[in-house]
């Protein structure tokens, strides 16, 4: 990689020097003092436009070759598959259009480079052509719009069918907290005005609300695989955004209101760790981290794949490190984990 960089910079420097010497030559010879492009300029720049087209294709191919592997692995949620498919189709359309239009643009730039005495075609209008390239985008976009809207409506239809698990995601500078409804799967009432740090009531739960007493407050998000989860998001200070890229899920957390998102996890953490893409990624990453360890640098412990919740709305100094681990597991493991957690009333009792 570094070698590529060095080569590339050298090439750029070489081009710059080449151009500079040309300028020097031109200024010395004084063959022509005009600062308007002449036939020679048109020729050179025409060729360069063509070369630039190849560069655009080149960097596209290079990026795909080199960076496809860094993209997110297979979606781990039910709607994620549909999301990825729509994304794929959109990308195919985009690259089709990109390849053709860039080719036309730069090829015309090269093909019709100016020459003294050449006559351009006075071609000011053509209704049929314009109709064609208006109607084609209309049709393609209509398709994309309808498909997108259909998917969007499905994703954003947050309802209580299929007995969803209710989980609150609570954001503050600069960490996340999750709250489960407990045995009754109902979240107790809460408001920042009821926060009592001395009593460790950090989420401002209403201590008088019977629904709140069995709530479970944790710093690690556990989800049973295959069960729909309805997230209720809150923030206590500034805007945050709960971003769960592996599940193709994101929603802002807004102080003063409760926002919602819902998805069904389909792949457990253990299964995901066996996904070939993930295995490769972990291998590559740990190689980098081993190099770091060899150099005695920090942040070099071997990494094991985990789903992650990131903050994706600028929220202050440590915005870049506001995260929570997500663990998707079987129903039994989940139940066992829930049992091992303290409820809100137990926590309160232990402190008083």
């Amino acid at each position, binding site marked *: 990689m570094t070698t590529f960089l060095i080569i590339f910079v050298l090439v750029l420097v070489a081009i710059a020097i080449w151009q500079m010497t040309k300028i020097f030559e031109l200024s010395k010879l004084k063959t022509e003092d005009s600062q308007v492009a002449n036939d020679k300029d048109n020729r050179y720049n025409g060729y360069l436009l063509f070369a630039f087209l190849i560069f655009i294709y080149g*960097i596209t191919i290079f990026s795909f070759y080199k960076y496809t592997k860094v993209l997110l692995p297979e979606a781990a949620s039910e709607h994620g598959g549909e999301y990825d498919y729509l994304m794929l189709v959109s990308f195919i*359309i985009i690259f089709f259009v990109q390849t053709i239009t860039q080719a036309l*643009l730069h090829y015309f730039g090269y093909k019709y480079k100016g020459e003294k005495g050449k006559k351009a075609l006075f071609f000011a209008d053509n209704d049929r052509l314009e109709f064609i390239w208006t109607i084609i*985008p209309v049709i393609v976009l209509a398709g994309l719009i309808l498909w997108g809207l259909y998917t969007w409506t499905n994703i954003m239809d947050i309802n209580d069918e299929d007995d969803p698990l209710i989980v609150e995601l609570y954001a503050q500078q600069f960490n996340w907290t999750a709250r489960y409804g407990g045995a009754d799967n109902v979240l107790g009432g809460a408001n920042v005005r009821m926060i009592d740090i001395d009593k460790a009531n950090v989420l401002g739960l209403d201590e008088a609300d019977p629904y709140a007493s069995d709530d479970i407050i944790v710093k690690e998000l556990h989800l049973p695989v295959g069960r729909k989860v309805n997230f209720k998001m809150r923030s206590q200070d500034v805007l945050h955004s709960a971003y769960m890229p592996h599940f193709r899920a994101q929603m802002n957390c807004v102080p003063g209101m409760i*926002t919602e998102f819902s998805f069904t996890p389909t792949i457990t953490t253990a299964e995901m760790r066996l996904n070939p893409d993930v295995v490769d990624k972990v291998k590559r990453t740990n190689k980098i981290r081993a190099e770091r360890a060899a150099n005695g640098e920090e942040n070099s412990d071997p990494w094991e794949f985990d789903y992650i919740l990131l903050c994706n709305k600028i929220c202050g100094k440590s915005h870049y490190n506001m995260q929570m681990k997500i663990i998707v597991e079987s129903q039994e493991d989940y139940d066992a984990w829930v049992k091992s957690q303290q409820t809100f009333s137990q926590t309160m009792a232990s402190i008083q």
Partner: protein
Amino acid sequence: MSVTAHAHADDHAEDHAHHHKETFVTKYIFSQDHKMISKQYLITGLIMGFIGIAMSLLFRMQLAWPGESFAIFETFLGDWAPGGVMDADMYLALVTIHGTIMVFFVLTAGLSGTFSNLLIPLQIGARDMASGFLNMLSYWMFFVSSVIMVISLFVEAGPAAAGWTIYPPLSALPMAQPGSGMGMTLWLVSMAIFIASSLLGSLNYIVTVINLRTKGMSMTRLPLTIWAFFVTAVIGVISFPVLLSAALLLIMDRSFGTSFFLSDIFIQGEVLHYQGGSPVLFEHLFWFLGHPEVYIVLLPALGITSEVMSTNARKPIFGYRAMVASILAIAFLSTIVWGHHMFISGMNPFLGSVFTFTTLLIAIPSAVKAFNYITTLWKGNLQLNPAMLFSIGLVSTFITGGLTGIILGDSTLDINVHDTYFVVAHFHLVMGISALYGLFAGVYHWFPKMFKRMMNKNLGYVHFWITAICAYGVFFPMHFVGMAGVPRRYYENTAFPMFDELADVNVLITVFAIVAGLAQLVFLYNFISSIFYGKPTEQNPWKSNTLEWTAPIEHFHGNWEGAIPHVHRWAYDYSKVDKDGEYIIPGQDFVPQNIPLQEDEEELNH
């Protein structure tokens, strides 16, 4: 004014230029001449651009080599880079001010301000703007707001750092972030003055275009530059006041304890009194300007491209009426798409559906424009001057960046790429780089008109090619960073092992960015040295049709000696031939707008 000057002025009929005795102050500082004001806008804009780009290089270095110590950080950032390592708050401040400066001060004032001022009177055949005084006021308010914005960089707690979108509560609460103290106050004051300046300018442009067109200059004969500036001014008048209201309400929340945007906040161990406000309301108000702003930045660039491309292709712009219709359609749609910045803000998902619909519609006029540019090149006789190359470059980045808009405008697909580097790559290509190319195209093309000298073309070529390669080098790989899930505005990505392998890409991007930054020094040198030592220009160096090239090279208030030229045709009669296939004017492939129709010539006004 002296008696002789009075007599002198009286001698002239109304149609004549006004020769006032100009002092240094009235000529160079408090000038009411649109040409001088446009130069003031350009130079102020370029200075701000220099600051904005330099900032981006600093934070790009931090991203490529996180936590590393650089002497350059210590030099420029002082206490905010203890030991040469950039502070995380400073990183956010740099990102914020970079965005603010580039969007408002460079690409709004620097681009639209410069070329609207220069070209509107000259291309429609007017002596000056409708109100020279308001025009002067507009520039000086812009200058004051620039100065305040620069001063805010030196505030003890640091400049505004809540992102250029300054979403509250982060921007409203000094305890949430040090930059939200004095720095944010200055930011808001600066922007309030900027908005007033922009409104004065826009109203002036609109009135001038509507009222002061010369005889024969019907709306359908206006060059596309003027159409673009005119419509840009209209969008500005519609949307900038909304930003002013957002800024005012935010000032109220910050300083007078109101709760427009704030509610239920517990920060640093205490509950604040705010109740009932909504940050989402601020987002609506902000983006009601924020999205049209994209087109306020872009339309002038597209207008300049239309003109430069047609002139240098020696061909009429293809589909003039479709181009005008596209500008109008884009302008209309641009005011009803703002919600696509807020799909996951917590607003009702149904609104998301509506905004997806309008957003994807805007791709249609954009596509028409792109196709029309490409067809304009077809069978042309392309004079590849630097301005022309930048115009072609603009179309290229406009397409590349615009296409990814199809993904971001789709509420479904936006979910997972929202606020990631995918967005950063998208908008930098489609509005940042494209608009900058438009600015450069304009500078190279109209430099002779502004400074009476030519810029060096070879330095122009070096500037273009390095910039063009590096722009793609920076922003193409960046899409992949975003698709890997890296959020924007992260001080470093090291807290997430899943982003470890992206360190390479970030180094690559930063190297391209630094080379691109250095290439701008070539432009800077060319610009400054050409002002003083450039080759003196001819009357009409690019053999162009528009009226500004009929005005004398020498500048004076009033533009034309004697009568204002009248217009007899549209601006795009390049390579027009008669029935025998000969040029309309023998030996000349262009027919300026002030030339009457020749015998037997048909007016092909498309």
